[in-house]
């Protein structure tokens, strides 16, 4: 479109609308940015709180006294953890001594896709706690791995990991009852627990192997 074809009114119009839109944008973006700056600290605190809440689910209370979110180590993509991206592990210390490690792992072979886990291991390699952070298992069938959805409220399925050590526990301890193991499971949905168990075990073994590196001081 050439300039000569432009009637003068169009340019004028363009100028006018541009200015008005400009004004509106400036005002409202300003307001918005103000709100952002104002809420930013709270949001960050909330996000950190959220993370800590999760971590506190897998770590016994009082088992650490440091700020975990600050004491982290980055783990490169690892097959053993089922991760294809770098992930972060948090280190718990008590009185300056490494007491536990919290890391993320993925069970790739859930019934309906990946199951994301948060695993806490003690310095001695024993499992302190496991939580599922994300999964797509069938609601009402495979979702009992989430304590919230587990019908067994007294002893949710996922707490069966607590205290296990891959090194000492025999093979049997890492199987569902249907396969001749110790783990309870819900009949008709054993794909899910098998996947979780396998992933947790692999993660625990991985940590055992790389202990030194993972617990190394910052």
């Amino acid at each position, binding site marked *: 479109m050439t300039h000569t074809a432009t009637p003068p009114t169009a340019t004028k119009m363009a100028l006018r609308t541009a200015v008005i839109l400009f004004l509106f944008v400036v005002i409202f973006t300003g307001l918005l940015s103000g709100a952002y700056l104002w809420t930013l600290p709270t949001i960050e605190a909330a996000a950190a709180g959220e993370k800590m809440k999760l971590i506190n689910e897998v770590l016994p209370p009082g088992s650490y006294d440091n700020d975990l979110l600050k004491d982290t180590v980055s783990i490169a993509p690892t097959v053993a953890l089922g991760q294809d991206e770098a992930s972060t592990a948090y280190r718990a210390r008590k009185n300056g001594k490494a007491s536990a490690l919290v890391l993320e792992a993925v069970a790739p*072979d859930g*019934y*309906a896709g990946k199951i994301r886990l948060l695993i806490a291991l003690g310095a001695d390699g024993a499992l302190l706690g496991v939580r599922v952070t994300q999964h797509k298992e*069938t609601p*009402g*069938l495979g979702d009992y791995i989430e304590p919230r959805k587990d019908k067994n409220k007294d002893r949710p399925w996922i707490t069966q990991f607590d205290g296990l050590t891959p090194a000492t526990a025999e093979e049997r301890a890492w199987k569902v009852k*249907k396969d001749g193991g110790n783990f309870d499971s*819900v*009949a*008709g*949905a054993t*794909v899910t627990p*098998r996947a979780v168990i396998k992933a947790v075990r692999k993660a625990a073994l991985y940590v055992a192997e790389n202990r030194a590196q993972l617990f190394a001081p910052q």
Partner: protein
Amino acid sequence: MNFNTPPYLTQNVSVQHVMLQVLAALLPGIAVYVWLIGPVVVVQIAITTAASLLAEAFMLRLLNKPLGLFLGDGSAIVTAWLIALAFPPLAPWWLLVVGALFAIIVAKHLYGGLGQNPFNPAMIAFAVCIVSFPALMSQWPPVDLPSGVLDHLALVFGYSPRIDAMSGATPLDTLKTALKLGDGSASVASVMADAHTYGYFAGKGWEWVGAAYLLGGLWLWQRRIISWHAPAGFVGGMALLAGGLWLWNPGQFANPVFHLFSGGSMLGAWFIVTDPVSGCTTVKGKLIFGLAAGALAYVIRVFGGYPDGVAFAVLLLNICVPLIDLYTQPPIFGMKGKP
């Protein structure tokens, strides 16, 4: 004014007549099923029939339609029988009732009742239940479940806890679960060797039920109640896909005969994709409907999240029916070879 209108002659056929023949064609399949599982199958059929008829009567009453005329047409009974045959034979009674209510009330009468439902009511029942109660809907008894009629009834009516022994043992499910475990050790051959449920036309196995449905279907075809297009399409679609993958990797994919005679394949091919109401009506449309349903059922049962895909495949194709019909209009008299 008397609205008796031309033509004053009619053939001696009726909806009831058609439906009764469909029911008759289901009998061989039911007989084999009873032989395989036990008389509890008949109880299940009775439950769904009663629930369907009650729901039908209730809706007819509510909508002010003549009860006698429609209760007698037999269509609700066909739906009921198909539901009973598609559900696990030891499903608790209330599950069957929920399915039947959904089929008749939501899938059928909300759309105006007989003849007007775009979705296959029986398959809606199945889909609703498998989505809502996946655990119950995937607990199939093995064919040689060592228990009597009374045990079965106790299970159906909830006086006995659901036992582990009866879960997940249809050939399809066994195969899929084994392959899914995914350590690569399982192959079709190893699983099938294990699965005594699949007799390959020799022992007591699910495939006999499929064969009996095939027989009933052929009879329906011979009686001209159904045309061959949709069943042939279904069988063809499934066989082509299954055959192709089987030839490519027989270790991970079962052969087409296995697929055609397990799960709901035969029931689907002869009694479900042929549902005139919710299916395609043009000749080309029926072929497309069958082909696509067969292929989709295979994809869902092999790659998807559910143990069998017939119901979902049929429902998905139900969605496409109006458009398929629209674009497969046959040329009319005098317009052949023209757009």
